[in-house]
C-alpha cells in the first residue's frame, strides 16, 4: 500500500477493495465488484489483488471470515477497516469540495 505518509490517502484499488468488503466476498467477487462499479474502467489483476489483500490483512483492515471448509477464502472488513474507509470518504469529499470551488464552480 502506498498510503501517502502525511495525507493518508488510499489508492483507488485499496479503497475499492475496502468498499467491496462491507459484505463478505471472495477474491473473484471483489474483482467483479470493482469492474462492475467502475464500468470496466478500473480492472484489477489477480496478482495485484492478491498483494493488496495480503497487505490489508497485515494491516488489520480486513480479515478472513466464514468456515474454511470450502477452499475459497472469503474476506470481510474489520472495524479498523471501516474507520479507514470512512476517513477516505471524508477526505475525498473535502477534495471534491475544493476542486468544485476552483474548477466546477456551479457543479
Amino acid at each position, binding site marked *: 500500500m*502506498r498510503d501517502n505518509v502525511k495525507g493518508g490517502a488510499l*489508492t*483507488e*484499488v485499496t479503497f475499492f477493495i475496502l468498499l467491496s468488503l462491507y459484505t463478505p466476498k*471472495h*477474491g*473473484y467477487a471483489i*474483482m467483479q465488484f470493482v469492474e462492475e462499479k467502475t464500468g470496466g474502467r478500473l*480492472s*484489477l*489483476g*489477480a*496478482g*495485484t*489483488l*492478491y*498483494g*493488496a489483500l495480503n497487505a490489508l490483512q497485515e494491516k488489520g483492515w480486513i480479515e478472513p471470515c466464514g468456515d474454511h471448509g470450502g*477452499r*475459497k*477464502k472469503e474476506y470481510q472488513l474489520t472495524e479498523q477497516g471501516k474507520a479507514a474507509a470512512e476517513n477516505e470518504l471524508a477526505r475525498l469529499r473535502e477534495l471534491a469540495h475544493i476542486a468544485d470551488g476552483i474548477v466546477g464552480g456551479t457543479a
Partner: protein
Amino acid sequence: MSKTCCRFFGGLLKAQENWLNRMSEKGYRLIRTGKLLYEFERCKPNQVKYCVEYIGQKSKDSAEDYHDFLEDMGYRVFYKNLNLNVSIGKLRWRPWAEKGGRISTNATTFNRELLIVEKENDGKPVDLHTSCEDKVSYYGNLRNQWLFLLLALAIFAVAGRSAILGVIASALLMPVLVYQAQTAKAKRESRIKE
C-alpha cells in the same frame, strides 16, 4: 486427441507465453507440464489465453497460497520449472528472494519457479499486475534476479579470466535492461497515477 510438444524456454517468459497463446489459437489447450514436455488437448481455437508468471522469489507456502488464490479466481494454473536441472536433493540459496533470501530445495520451490496461468478467453489478455506499484515490484524483482546472475558470472569471469563467461555475463545485460526499463516506466507512472 492429445498432443505432446517438447520445448524449453528457460528465462524467456514472454516467449513461452506467446508460444502457448499460439497453440491456443491453433486449438490446443494445456493439460500437463513436465520439465520439457507440454501436453495439450483439443479445444476451440482461441478458447483460452495464457500468461507466464515468475514466482521464484516466493517461499513454498506463499507460492502455494498464490497458486490456490489464482485457481479460486477461476484460472487454471500449472507449475513450471525455469531451468533444466535434474539433480536430486538440490539445495540452493536464492539471495534475491523475499525476506532477505530463501533456501530452495527439490521438496519446496526448486523447479517450480514459474506459474502458467490459463483463463477462458474473454478478449482481454491475462493481466495479473495492474497497478503501478505492483508492476514496480514484479518487474524489479525479475530485474534483480537477472542482475544477480550477471554479477555472479562477471565475478567468475574475472576471477577465472574466462572470456566465455564474460560473453555470457554481458549477454545477461539484455534481460536486466529490459526489466529495468519496465520497472522504470511503472515507477514514472506511479508518481502521478495509480
